């Protein structure tokens, strides 16, 4: 799933391709502001950067603020200093400190998720080497598709039943049942290895399963993972 071209060596001339130029501007401008922001935080510098886009829009970054810095440059005056101003600046710096901490935290969480994602990808690849049913369905043959479908249908029934069981249990904890509704044990599944069965897949005899209330996903207001 390689989307970007990675680090490329770039010749220092105006980019020939118009759309690449636009993308480059967007990315590099963002990176430039990020570097400026870091320099301000790390070393206590006060920086103003003004950049015109290829579309003639203007972007600017300024710490503490663009206008004040421009003023200071133009008039060549040392920055004004007063009790009030120092207080304002201290307050602003405290905000920035907190925001930086927040940003760091989110970036760390992001990194953790990324690593977790890679782990999961690795595991998936490994099991795809062992199990044909984990491969993309586009690569399957008809008999494989049909068997997988049958197994999934069965699994679906089990999931529904298990969900019902939990539902009943949670509601019955409030009102102890006067009689048993469900069997106390789910039937032990038997793996049948008929002529159409590929080894490894597990199919439960439907006769062993009693399903009662249909499990309505809608009642949980969930559409999956969204």
């Amino acid at each position: 799933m390689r989307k970007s071209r990675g680090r490329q060596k770039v010749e220092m001339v105006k980019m020939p391709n118009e759309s690449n130029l636009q993308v480059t501007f967007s990315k590099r401008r963002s990176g430039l502001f990020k570097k400026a922001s870091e320099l301000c935080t790390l070393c206590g510098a006060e920086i103003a950067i003004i950049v015109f886009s290829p579309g003639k829009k203007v972007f600017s970054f300024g710490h503490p603020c663009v206008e004040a810095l421009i003023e200071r440059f133009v008039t060549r005056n040392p920055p004004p200093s007063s009790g009030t101003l120092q207080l304002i600046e201290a307050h602003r710096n405290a905000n920035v400190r907190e925001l930086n901490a927040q940003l760091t935290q989110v970036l760390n969480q992001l990194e953790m998720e990324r690593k977790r994602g890679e782990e999961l990808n690795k595991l998936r690849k490994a099991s795809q080497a062992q199990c044909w049913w984990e491969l993309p369905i586009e690569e399957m043959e008809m008999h494989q598709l049909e068997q997988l479908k049958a197994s999934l249908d069965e699994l679906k029934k089990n999931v529904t039943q298990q969900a019902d069981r939990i539902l009943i249990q949670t509601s019955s904890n409030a009102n102890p049942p006067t009689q048993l509704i469900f069997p106390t044990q789910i039937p032990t599944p038997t793996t049948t290895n008929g002529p159409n069965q590929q080894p490894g897949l597990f199919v439960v005899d439907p006769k062993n399963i009693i399903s009662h209330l249909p499990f309505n996903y809608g009642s949980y207001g969930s559409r999956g993972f969204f």
Partner: protein
Amino acid sequence: MTRKKVKLAYIANDSARKATYKKRKRGLMKKVSELSTLCGIEACAIIFSPYDSQPELWPSPIGVQRVLSQFKKMPEMEQSKKMVNQETFLRQRIAKANEQLKKMRKDNREKEITRLMFQSLTAAKGLHGLNMLDLNDLGWLIDQNLKDITIRIDSLKKPSLPQPQAQAQAQAPPTTQPQTAAWLMELVSPQDQMGFVGDDMLLPFGDQTYNHNNAMWSNAFFP
């Protein structure tokens, strides 16, 4: 250069801070210059530091003045529309990072539930330990997969080509317009298990007026 992770906070150590300032200031100037050259745009940078009474400038004092006057000429609203300071900039970065995090978590959750699905399929893992949330998502994912499989099965069955064992059914029923289209698509990209050469099959299957059609079919299937 070493790639140690730097904490995003004011560097307390004076000499370390000064060294960092020198390096990063140089790097920043380089980046502005590159941006300007690569994209053919005007830019300027003004850097005030505790180490120098005079600001560091790019491209040059005159260059900065030129860009500043260009900037000032623009309407007030245009100037401030894309103006940020530390606070606003950091908030934007935080928002973007949170978006990415949300998406990544969702993708990882789907990967986990997929794994769970395949594990419970082979009874490697029971459904007992799962809570309602997991069961809910698992059920949803199973439904998604069943839907895709059904679509796939249908698309393979659609072209009503006779199976090898249905030799007697060489006469195919006349096909309606959309079915013919699907069948033609099937021709264009024949399935491996069909095992015939595409060239033989250019004549429409549903055309019953030419008997030799069926003969060609027979030849193709049963060499």
